[in-house]
């Protein structure tokens, strides 16, 4: 009987570059910058790393395929390196692989690094990647905002909401993230924005306006993991440990079977259920100190609050507007600015979320530090609501 990975793996070093439009940096620079931070934080030697996983979602337009760009950039001398890709959940996939390798006892030290260099392609958003394959014959070439905007329509219909009320709650999601990112020196967008500006922004995909959408960024984030015993041997008596890493992936049910109403993300619910069980979380609303969720769009964060069980179904708009998830609320969400404002270098985002939880748990978050956080959750979502990969991870201190 599988016992899960709770407290079997410790994070002893993390690094994260500033996210943004790094016109002066290539993938190699981003990889090295994130890794050197993590290495210095961990106290281990470069040569101690025994296996590495690189997360990169859009290999064809930036870093290059395989994990060799990572091996080259860090001069990882003949150790096993692998590239993982699971759309926007790629960063958590890299962490999951490294965590599993340590938990399995296969290696003592493993590296997970996510990187994306998108700003060489000349425009915001993500490119279309059609190759003339079977799906191209019928699937719409929809954009990411278009795919997630559909959550809003279905949510409004299901809960018989007034579209304007939902729009205000969505606007509050983005308003809050802009407020938070102003205190984060690594964030891509550090400017606070008022509600009126958000509400009157140009429409991108009905009903998502410009400020309901995160952009994409250049950046890298990195974690070095080992066992709690080894961590103790290195002088880290109470390390940050992984309480759960769970993944759930679509198998066609939402998109091709008639039961889904389009108003929630099935995989978030499934991954959260398993993660809570693995971490031993009984009452997520009370036990989780903070969350970093995949706020690629404001509606995604809103729906995710319900899918994680933090808000009752149909109540997320009211909870959001009441400030429950604000920095001074009872359960802050995106204290670092989230995808919306910290930025979204796709393959790095899952590790960036872990980086913020790690930073908060160690009390290193400076101006945005929360009081005595105990458990933090990351939610990293790839694909679209109708065809997704959701990763939910929980982190805390060992003791």
């Amino acid at each position, binding site marked *: 009987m599988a016992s899960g990975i709770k407290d079997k793996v410790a994070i002893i070093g993390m690094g994260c570059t500033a996210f943004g439009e790094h016109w002066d940096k290539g993938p190699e620079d981003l990889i090295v910058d994130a890794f050197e931070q993590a290495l210095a934080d961990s106290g281990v030697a470069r040569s101690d790393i025994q296996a590495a996983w690189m997360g990169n979602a859009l290999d064809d337009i930036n870093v290059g395929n395989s994990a060799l760009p990572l091996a080259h950039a860090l001069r990882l001398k003949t150790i096993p390196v692998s590239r993982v890709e699971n759309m926007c959940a790629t960063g958590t996939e890299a962490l999951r692989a490294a965590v599993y390798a340590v938990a399995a006892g296969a290696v003592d030290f493993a590296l997970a690094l996510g990187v994306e260099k998108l700003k060489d392609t*000349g*425009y915001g*958003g993500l*490119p*279309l*990647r*059609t*190759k*003339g*394959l*079977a799906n*191209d*014959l*019928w*699937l*719409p*070439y*929809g*954009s990411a*905002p*278009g*795919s997630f*905007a*559909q*959550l*809003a*329509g*279905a949510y*409004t*219909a299901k809960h018989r909401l007034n579209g304007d009320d939902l729009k205000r709650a969505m606007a509050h999601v983005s308003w809050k993230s802009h407020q938070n990112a102003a205190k984060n020196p690594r964030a891509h967008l550090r400017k606070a924005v008022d509600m009126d500006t958000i509400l009157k922004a*140009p*429409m*991108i*995909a*009905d009903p*998502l306006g410009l400020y309901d959408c995160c952009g994409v960024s250049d950046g890298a984030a990195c974690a070095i993991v080992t066992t709690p015993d080894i961590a103790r041997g290195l002088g880290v008596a109470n390390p940050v440990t992984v309480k759960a890493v769970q993944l759930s992936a679509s*198998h*066609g*049910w939402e*998109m*091709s*079977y*008639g039961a*889904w*109403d*389009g108003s929630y993300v099935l995989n978030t619910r499934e991954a959260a259920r398993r993660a809570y069980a693995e971490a031993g979380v009984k009452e997520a609303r009370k036990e989780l100190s903070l969350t970093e969720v995949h706020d690629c769009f404001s509606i995604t964060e809103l729906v995710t609050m319900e899918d994680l069980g933090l808000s009752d179904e149909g109540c997320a708009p009211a909870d959001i507007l009441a400030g429950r998830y604000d920095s001074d609320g009872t359960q802050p969400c995106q204290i670092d600015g989230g995808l919306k404002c910290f930025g979204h270098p796709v393959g790095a985002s899952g590790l960036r979320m872990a980086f913020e939880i790690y930073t908060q748990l160690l009390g290193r978050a400076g101006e945005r530090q929360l009081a005595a956080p105990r458990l933090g959750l990351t939610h990293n979502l790839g694909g679209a609501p*109708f*065809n997704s990969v959701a990763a939910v991870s929980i982190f805390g201190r060992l003791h």
Partner: protein
Amino acid sequence: MRGVARVGVYAPLLRLDCAAAARALKFSGLAGRRDGYRAVGGWDEDAFTFAVEAARGGAAALDTLIFASTSAPFFERLHATLAVDALGLPRETRTRDVAGSRRCAVSALLDALLARGSALIAAGERRPARPGAAAHLAQGDGGAAAWVADEAPARFIGWASLSYDLVDTYASREHPEPYPAEERFVKEGAAAHVLVPTIRRALESAGLSGGDIHHVAAPEPVAGLWRDISRATKISAPNHASEISAKLGDLGAAHALFAFALATARAKPGERILLTGFGSGCDALVFETTGSMPGAELAEAALNEGALLADYVRFLSLNGALDLDWGVRSEFEQKAQATVLDRYGRDTLGFIGGRDCAGNVQFPKSRIPVRPDADGPEAMQDVRLADEPARIVSVTADRLNYTPDPPFWFGLAQFNNGARVMMEFTDADARGFSVGDRVAMRLRIKSHDRRRGFRTYFWKAAPAERPTLGG
């Protein structure tokens, strides 16, 4: 008795207000159409999709399918074969394309009537023209179809043909847009040398005189020409082709069959219809109706429904006369692979899903069904979704994504038979689309690889009902 057993028509949603176009062109002093409407195809429609839309709803099998057009997208790739897949017909159906003249659809109909077996003639037209040319506003986009069978409510009772190279207009590979001859020459020559003598012979063949004809479907190469022919042939019946010209424009190869459909809709049993096709000669056919014509009711509706388009620049863009720079988002690969088309092309073109062992319908088919309790590979039975009604589960108007006619509507469609498909929506009216809306499937261009001159087709969800023009 052998004749036309069914008719079909299709006009795209948009109707250009020709007065608005004339206002936009006023500075130029160019003469052209100043009133009426012109049917305008969406960016994702072409002569082939028009023909298929017109040809829906017929028999599940027939002997021959003929596609007729002077503006077919491919020179080498048979549209009639594509139509067999799009209409869900057996692959054993004989197929051929005809072209070369606006007359080609009527000529094909005549051939089919003189031959044996059942046949479908499906015509579609989306002809290019340059802004400012009279043809640009005079032409319209659309399709029409006719089915030939041994038992038919429009009995074929006479005919005549004439081959005559009267160059009223031409288009060539070097000059794809029509190049017209002097209008007065065409008016005189077409009537005197081509149409009148052929119509007289057709009437003789049927043992009739002009006064015995009750309805006419005779496209005019020049407006007002029918008056001269009417005088010469003593046919005083209304020419339904003229009304189509005013409301939809000149539909080229599809015009005569569209007019014939309208004539059958308006004809009483026992009345006689004259159908002519003109271009490089003439074919004149005479029919006598014996009962109501399946499909004809759509012809009347098609004339009066639609959405007004008063934006001349949008018309130019939709029409391909204005090549906008859509920016880097439009720069993506749309190459279709022949091997993939071979494996999946028939299912996508025909919108064929599968019914699993438990009765659940899905698209696309898969080895292991999507049904949650499926536990291994199952054989699937073909189910055509193209004719299945559906409702919208989720939808958005995507303004980020590139489309030649923004916004890009897409979302989940739930079919009445249980299938669920993420798909593109088309023909949005001013209200757009909402969750719960009823939608019907339309065959459209899915991808257009301009670099290689190739296109793929799939079905898109359109509003179940069309608005009435001006309503």
